[in-house]
């Protein structure tokens, strides 16, 4: 027990030091922030896909309210920061388009099939969920594949980048954002069943800590928390190592992306926090007295479908300019109108995914004599 705990604590202390020594203080800090995300998400069971399921299936709005609270807290600080330090900090703004809306819808459906979103897939994998690990492999491949076709999707029909700061000014944009979140919270409270309206203390803490970490990410990295870009970059690097020539890809030939492709992952801010996130979730699982039973065994066909759903998850997140983290959480909290559209489209897709889940994820037959 002691040795196991010592190993895990050494691991989460060593990782930021490794980043610091290899790539400088920013890398070390971002790995530490990522570990913090993993500790909070897994340790306090703060998620995105689960609450979206629970408001629909069980009329439980507590997790969703915690999400809105966290986003509101980040927005309250991020809007003034971005207005005052626009030369050093950048928001998560992206254009609204046909491909973006379709991507968000498909992402919402797929995240209910793999039982995890962008951050959830990393947390699930790190905490020892086999479905999460398989989905992560698919996510890496899918977000890379999506990057190869992004130009085609954005060429379908797309508006210019619209932000609430651009429409209403920095202060007005913040007021509209907070009012929008409050309106959604009221809708959730109205929809939720009695006794499932007020988040427990655990989720209040989680929302505050996630908000603090997201703001730390913005201050350290100069940009909001994101996941999909890093996973797509991992896929691109694996493809390049396998001999793929990405110079012909519009996305990877873009100077900024080409620079990331040829530089170390230790210089990519989204990769650093994602690495930390997996480590943080792993640490929580290993520090528990009982790490829990393995995830429910599925049929071989279901595992293949989980891999495919992971691919779709990554591909659609790339189409949608982010997942629940980059588009929904960071987009809304930094004033991107695409974050709001993403939320509407992904929630509709999530509802469809909930209907598909029992069809696709079939439990393996119990061996004779086993307890059900």
């Amino acid at each position, binding site marked *: 027990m002691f040795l196991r705990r010592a190993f895990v604590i050494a691991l989460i202390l060593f990782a930021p030091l490794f980043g610091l020594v*290899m*790539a400088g*203080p*920013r*890398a070390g800090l971002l790995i530490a922030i990522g570990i913090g995300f993993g500790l909070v998400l897994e340790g306090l069971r703060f998620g995105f896909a689960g609450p979206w399921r629970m408001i629909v299936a069980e009329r439980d709005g507590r997790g969703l309210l915690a999400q809105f609270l966290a986003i509101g807290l980040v927005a309250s600080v991020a809007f003034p*920061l971005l207005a005052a*330090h626009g030369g*050093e*900090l*950048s928001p*998560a*703004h*992206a254009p609204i388009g046909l491909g973006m809306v379709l991507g968000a819808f498909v992402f919402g459906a797929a995240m209910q099939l793999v039982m995890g979103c962008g951050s959830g897939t990393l947390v699930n*994998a*790190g905490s*020892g969920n*086999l479905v*999460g*690990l398989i989905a*992560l*492999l698919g996510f890496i491949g899918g977000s890379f594949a999506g990057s190869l076709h992004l130009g085609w999707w*954005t060429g379908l029909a797309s508006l210019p980048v619209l932000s609430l700061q651009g429409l209403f000014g920095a202060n007005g944009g913040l007021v509209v954002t907070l009012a929008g979140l409050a309106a959604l919270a009221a809708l959730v409270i109205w929809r939720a069943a009695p006794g499932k309206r007020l988040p427990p203390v655990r989720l209040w803490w989680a929302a505050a800590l996630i908000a603090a970490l997201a703001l730390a990410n913005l*201050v*350290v*990295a*100069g*940009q*909001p928390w*994101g996941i*999909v*870009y890093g996973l797509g*970059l*991992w896929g691109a*690097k*694996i493809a390049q*190592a396998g001999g793929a020539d990405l110079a012909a890809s519009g*996305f990877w030939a*873009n100077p*900024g*992306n080409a620079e990331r492709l040829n530089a*170390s992952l*230790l210089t*990519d801010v*989204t990769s650093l926090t994602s*690495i930390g996130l*997996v*480590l943080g979730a*792993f640490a929580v*699982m*290993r520090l528990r007295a009982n*790490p*829990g039973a*393995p*995830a429910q065994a599925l049929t071989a066909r279901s595992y293949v479908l989980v891999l495919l759903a992971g691919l779709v998850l990554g591909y659609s*997140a790339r189409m949608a300019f*982010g997942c629940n983290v*980059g*588009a929904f959480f960071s987009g809304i909290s930094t004033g*991107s109108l*695409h974050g709001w559209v993403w939320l509407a489209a992904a929630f509709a897709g999530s509802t469809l995914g909930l209907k598909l889940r029992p069809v696709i994820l079939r439990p393996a037959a119990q061996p004779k004599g086993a307890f059900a």
Partner: protein
Amino acid sequence: MTLSTLPRQIVGLGAVALVGLILALDLAATGTPDLFDAPSALALGSGQAPSGAHCTAQ
């Protein structure tokens, strides 16, 4: 023991190993970053434009 009954500890370690493997392969391919080129600890107050890429990148 089958794939579907792997304990959480093993699967979690597998995820950590996957991340470590990707990082190791990348370090072998790109080399270690130049520490003299490393950005300051915080972007805020650095006076430099953000250079990282985000999910909203095109």
